[in-house]
């Protein structure tokens, strides 16, 4: 993978953004700026709005209030954004076929796809898995295929929605290593987790969501050392936020 040209997607800004589904407020008046640099990690209990915020940031769902801008623009084709869903769907193709598909979708010329796919599969630790049907892989392996597919887009911003939620510690460690590696190469990682340990290990910045509201955001070190809100203190202490 190459080092990245400056992205047109950053900074990614939520400006008093909200999402209403019918009567239900899913995201409430979110103002947040995502800059290049170390990973931004969204934390918060189930139902806090993490998935919804990530989807909106990717441009998959529109906001109903306020706005989101990518590099200052309100509309920006997601050419250099990529998303790994919490339960990624494997295309009914081989592992390699899945990556080839993503490369084609990203406009990589036919002649380069074979080498790029091999590189990506190596990067995510799936050497030798290329010809296997992707749907037959384990959860952790499928998560890696999804990562390889996302990286096929040569993303400037990579969104990961609870990428290790259903994985055992070994598979979790493998995914975290890939994420760190990718972030170190200059990709802006924006991910959600409800695993506080994972947040500590990976986050440059932290964002705490609760009931669709942004409770607290800032550098991870400061967040853990000196939380400003009661919710954050409780969350760090491992108490349930209800």
């Amino acid at each position: 993978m190459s080092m990245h040209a400056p992205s047109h997607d950053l900074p990614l800004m939520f400006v008093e953004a909200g999402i209403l589904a019918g009567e239900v407020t899913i995201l409430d008046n979110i103002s947040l700026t995502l800059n290049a640099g170390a990973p931004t990690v969204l934390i918060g209990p189930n139902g806090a709005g993490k998935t919804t915020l990530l989807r909106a940031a990717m441009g998959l769902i529109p906001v109903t209030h306020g706005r989101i801008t990518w590099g200052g623009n309100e509309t920006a084709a997601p050419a250099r954004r990529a998303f790994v869903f919490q339960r990624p769907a494997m295309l009914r193709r081989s592992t390699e076929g899945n990556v080839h598909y993503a490369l084609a979708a990203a406009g990589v010329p036919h002649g380069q796809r074979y080498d790029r796919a091999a590189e990506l599969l190596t990067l995510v630790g799936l050497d030798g898995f290329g010809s296997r049907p992707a749907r037959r892989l384990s959860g952790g392996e499928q998560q890696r295929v999804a990562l390889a597919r996302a990286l096929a887009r040569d993303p400037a911003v990579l969104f990961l929605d609870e990428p290790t939620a259903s994985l055992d510690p070994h598979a979790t460690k493998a995914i975290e290593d890939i994420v760190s590696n990718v972030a170190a190469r200059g990709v802006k990682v924006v991910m959600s987790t409800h695993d506080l340990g994972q947040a500590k290990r990976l986050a440059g910045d932290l964002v705490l969501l609760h009931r669709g509201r942004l409770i607290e955001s800032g550098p991870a070190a400061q967040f853990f050392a000196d939380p400003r809100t009661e919710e954050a203190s409780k969350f760090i202490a491992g108490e349930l936020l209800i």
Partner: protein
Amino acid sequence: MTGDVSALQLVLSGDPGLFAIVRLSLLISLSAVLFAGLIGVPVGAFIALTLFPGREGVIVVLNALMGLPPVVVGLAVFLALSRSGPLGSWGLLFTPQAMVIAQTVLVAPIIAALTRQTIEDLWVEYRDELAAMNIGPAGRVATLVWDARFSLVTALLAGFGRAAAEVGAIIVVGGNIEGFTRTMTTAIALETSKGDLPLAIGLGIVLIFIVILINALAWAARRAGERTAG
């Protein structure tokens, strides 16, 4: 029963009369499946991927049409093609073409309904991923049809099985004219009543063999799908 022996003899000796009937049957049913596929796959995919008013109703009707009684289809096509009917000027009644039309009408809803279900299930599974990869509408359809190809082949085979085995529609519009519109099923129906059991049984044996072959192919398609797609 000496009928069985002479029936087998008819089959094994390659009786030209019998094989002319088999050939015409296959030609009619395969043509019908081809046309029904050309209609049913796009229609099914369109319904699967498009929101329009009355969509649910269309799906219910389409599913119901899978169980159309062949003889009623035959009657409807007969009325359309009869001299005073809207398509009477085509002069197709009691021709193989009329039989292809009737079987196409019979089978197209089956293929459309199965395609709709297959493509829609896959779309639900794929939609987020395809959106995140920024795939446009044409690419979306191509991806879904390609990735569903083994199931779609199974749908075509189901249509072929239905066409090859039915008698009601083609006997009404084709008339079982010897050497012209006589097929396996119409011959079995009429020769049995006339008492020519060896021919009826011989054709029955061939028909059962074809049905087994269709199922074997459907099974092979499913296995191939599992091997490549998981």
